[in-house]
């Protein structure tokens, strides 16, 4: 007898549980979708978002802490001590610069976006931008150059580069013992928008202001967030020019 009851119970359970499931899917068929139509609508990145690295070279004192903090050695940095009577000026926060910065390159292909370098930066000149559209068809061009000073004639860049850049991690940097691999082919560097002043906070606010920007949790738009402790103070409520979109250059 139990065989027959379980036979019909199987049928009953089969039919009812299918109907339960169909009720759930029907419920969502009627409720609105959560899709963000990506290229047309863009998410507003959070203030702490870890996007493409950017260095404001004029504020960089060349201390090299970022280079030491990087687990994957994606920085290439060449510095030279300034002469006694040379005045290199001040950074934005008033620190006197004492080193010439001839090269400050970030190999984005190696970057693991861990944020360790920006946390140690004393002048907050190295920061992670809100730029996240970093896919491209070729590997070239992702070797970002930030230095604005030219080395004086007679300065051996090649030698300084090899001397000053410690190879800490042979696994991730196995091929780097070959000095040629540090030479960047001419024209491959991908400069960021007007490298000197890249105000990502403003561009982010422009995204907020732009129509169709869909915020997280289906809110219309997030209120400008208070300043975080690890990032420089953004210029609050700066009128965002419409052309401040960072994407696509």
């Amino acid at each position, binding site marked *: 007898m139990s065989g027959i009851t379980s036979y019909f119970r199987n049928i009953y359970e089969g039919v009812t549980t299918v109907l339960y499931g169909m009720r759930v899917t029907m419920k969502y068929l009627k409720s609105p979708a959560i899709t963000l139509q990506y290229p047309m609508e863009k998410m507003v990145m959070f203030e702490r978002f870890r996007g493409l690295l950017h260095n404001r070279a004029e504020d960089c004192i060349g201390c090299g802490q970022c280079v030491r903090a990087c687990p994957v050695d994606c920085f290439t940095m060449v510095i030279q001590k300034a002469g006694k009577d040379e005045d290199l000026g001040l950074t934005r926060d008033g620190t006197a610069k004492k080193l010439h910065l001839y090269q400050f390159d970030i190999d984005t292909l190696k970057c693991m976006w861990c944020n360790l370098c920006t946390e140690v930066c004393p002048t907050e000149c190295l920061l992670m931008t809100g730029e996240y559209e970093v896919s491209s068809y070729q590997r070239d061009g992702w070797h970002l150059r930030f230095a604005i000073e030219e080395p004086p004639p007679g300065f051996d860049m090649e030698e300084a580069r090899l001397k000053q850049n410690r190879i800490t991690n*042979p*696994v991730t940097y*196995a*091929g780097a013992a070959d000095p040629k691999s540090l030479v960047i082919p001419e024209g491959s560097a991908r400069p960021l928008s007007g490298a000197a002043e890249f105000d990502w906070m403003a561009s982010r606010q422009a995204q907020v202001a732009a129509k169709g920007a869909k915020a997280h949790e289906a809110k219309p738009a997030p209120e400008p967030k208070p300043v975080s402790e690890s990032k420089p103070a953004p210029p609050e409520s700066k009128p965002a020019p419409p052309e401040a979109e960072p994407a696509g250059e």
Partner: protein
Amino acid sequence: MDPAHIAERLKTKFGDAVTEVRLDVPDPHAMIAPAHVAEIGLYLRDDPDLDFKSLMCLSGVDYGDRLGVAYHLHSLTHRHRFCYKADLSREPGAARLPSVVGVWPAADWHEREAYDLVGIVFEGHPDLRRILLPDDWEGHPLRKDYQFPREWHGIPI
């Protein structure tokens, strides 16, 4: 039971096979002569007061001057932990010790990994092959004197 008592029992049971007991370190453990790891493991597993049915971790290590294998055990019934280790010579071909797969099947993949990465040979392992690296890989990468290959099958790294 705390590690001191367990080590004491091991000493009375196996005598000289327990070469040293270190209790004032972060991870109290007993040092075992390599030849005895399997029989001590069997005792630890089957003694009803110890009942170490579970091998948490088996690790091979290269200290630079010697190799080592660490066995971390715990018991689900008595809720205690114990660790015993064996030191091995770095001489070529000398890093051999009995396998504990027969004691804890969990050791199977752990021993293969230790063989693969540190180059310790576990005698009596049913299937001691490389596990993480390709079968034709040369050398054992977690050795301190490991040379990074410049190429693999003609592919520059």
